[in-house]
């Protein structure tokens, strides 16, 4: 093994080439094991990246990518010129902001609350309950919300009716759409989101708390001056990841929640790609929309990561 390390640092010579061959033969099983995985990434990840070229063509399936006509930026121009573009932009953006403001802080608060519980059994009991929704599918989550909020005998509306004598069309009223989406995300993921913060909290040195109490700090002050700074970097990393996925507004969830009545507030880039591409067969156009989204997403990840590093945090990579 030492010889190989040395070989890497010297410029390649003939004997090194022989060494390389010997190396490959010696480790042949390792290379054979790599084959299925590499094939997977090439076929299902990299060929689709090549397939993006259809965004610059008038793609028809029977001509294929090699035979279809090149049209340059035609589809992009159409997309940016469409009045729908701004609707999509607004919907995607607002949902992302709502999730950031109303959803993101909640797991932190919940983790801080759980962290104050000293009775292990009680803590585990609460955790068991709040983790459950994470494991059910979005179809189930949306289904459960539909069943609870429907005006046709849903429990929430029955309750509202007996209290106020009125029903609210939570599912049909476009004004309720974003509230519903954020509510579902909170119900499904808040408990699960606490795990990472609880883990970060368990690493805090208990002596710090003792010292703080000697100095007369109460629980609020201990939380503010010790606990929160201790999980600062975890919070920042998760914030970056969220920024990176800013445009991925929970595609399955929104796809499921879309109805003809709430399309104006609910349609986002992803669902638009599905509608135009797979239901209306405008392949090139929707591939162009998808590419636009991927590029903006990539820029967001890289930007957020650079920013985090500027603030002296480690960043994700």
């Amino acid at each position: 093994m030492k010889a190989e390390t040395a070989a890497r640092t010297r410029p390649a010579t003939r004997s090194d080439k022989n060494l390389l061959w010997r190396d490959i033969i010696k480790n042949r099983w390792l290379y054979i094991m790599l084959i299925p995985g590499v094939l997977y990434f090439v076929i299902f990840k990299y060929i689709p990246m090549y397939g993006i070229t259809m965004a610059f063509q008038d793609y028809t399936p029977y001509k294929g990518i090699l035979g279809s006509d090149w049209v340059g930026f035609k589809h992009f121009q159409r997309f940016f010129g469409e009045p729908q573009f701004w609707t999509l932009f607004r919907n995607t953006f607002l949902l992302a902001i709502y999730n950031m403001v109303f959803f993101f802080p909640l797991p932190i608060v919940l983790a801080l609350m759980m962290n104050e519980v000293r009775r292990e059994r009680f803590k585990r009991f609460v955790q068991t309950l709040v983790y459950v929704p994470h494991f059910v599918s979005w179809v189930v989550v949306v289904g459960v919300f539909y069943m609870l909020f429907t005006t046709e005998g849903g429990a929430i509306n029955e309750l509202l009716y007996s209290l106020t004598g009125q029903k609210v069309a939570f599912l049909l009223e476009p004004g309720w759409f974003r509230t519903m989406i954020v509510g579902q995300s909170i119900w499904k993921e808040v408990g699960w989101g606490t795990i990472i913060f609880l883990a970060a909290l368990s690493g805090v040195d208990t002596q710090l708390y003792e010292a703080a109490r000697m100095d007369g700090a109460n629980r609020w002050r201990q939380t503010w001056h010790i606990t929160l700074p201790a999980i600062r970097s975890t919070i920042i990393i998760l914030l970056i990841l969220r920024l990176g996925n800013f445009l991925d507004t929970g595609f399955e969830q929104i796809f499921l929640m879309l109805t003809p009545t709430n399309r104006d507030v609910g349609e986002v880039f992803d669902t638009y790609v599905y509608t135009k591409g797979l239901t209306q067969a405008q392949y090139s156009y929707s591939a162009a929309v998808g590419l636009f989204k991927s590029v903006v997403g990539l820029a967001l990840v890289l930007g957020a990561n650079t920013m985090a590093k500027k603030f002296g945090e480690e960043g994700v990579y």
Partner: protein
Amino acid sequence: MQQDKTWGNRIFDIVNHGLLLLIGIVTVIPFIYILAVSFTSPHEVAKGGFILFPKEFSLAAYRYIFSTDTLIRSLGVSIYITVIGTLLNLLFTSLMAYPLSRRYLRGRQPILLGVLFTMLFSGGMIPTYFVVKSLHLTDTLWSLMLPTAISAFNLIVLKNFFQAIPDELEDAAKIDGCNDVGVLFRIVLPLSMPAMATFSLFYAVAHWNSFFNAVIYINDSEKWPVQVWLREIVILAQSRIGDTSIEETEIQPLTIRMAVIVFSTIPIMLVYPFLQKHFAKGVMLGSVKG
């Protein structure tokens, strides 16, 4: 941190415990409600109100489910893709993760970079659809398993896990005449059981819950997994309510829709207690998972 027994601290503890208990209960009440309604007679449901325990116990909704071919068949499809799909995931992921965990392997760095890049950028839905279609996978169950055979994230985590296993074990096994395949299956994998348990959990849950790939790739309703039927029966039916052009009979009664939700969730709820002890560990393996 042991806190002083002052009044302020006591009140804080009581309020905190109370709030947490409330949050926990609010989280599971919808499930209890759905479960209760699914076991209640349609007659009682029609009277309305919030049911948390069925007064008139009835199995009618479940009898209906088990009398239909579609739902039973879809259950079979879901079980199939979950079991086979998860096995494929584990095999593919560990076969690739092991060579990548060997620091001396040439070409390891570019492959890892290639994998990382797929986490940042992707071809998107339409080009991927054409790849699956041109491989003639559409309308087969493979389209639900192969395109998700490896999760790049899990691959990297597993690679790091393998890397932490002492090299001396590998050397010893090789001296005893094992080749690399033998080292992986006889030494490394048995030592990685906690990680494998966690990954099989995550992969299996993803397969059981997946429905969008089936919506895209599978037209033949005989091959629909249970989540797709759930959407048909619960969500699409619901959004058709109020649409007068739809015949009343197409929309299933509330109890049946609730029972379908329960039916499609039962497997997860059954394994939940067994899996629970792995969660925290599994998430920490990944160190960060947003």
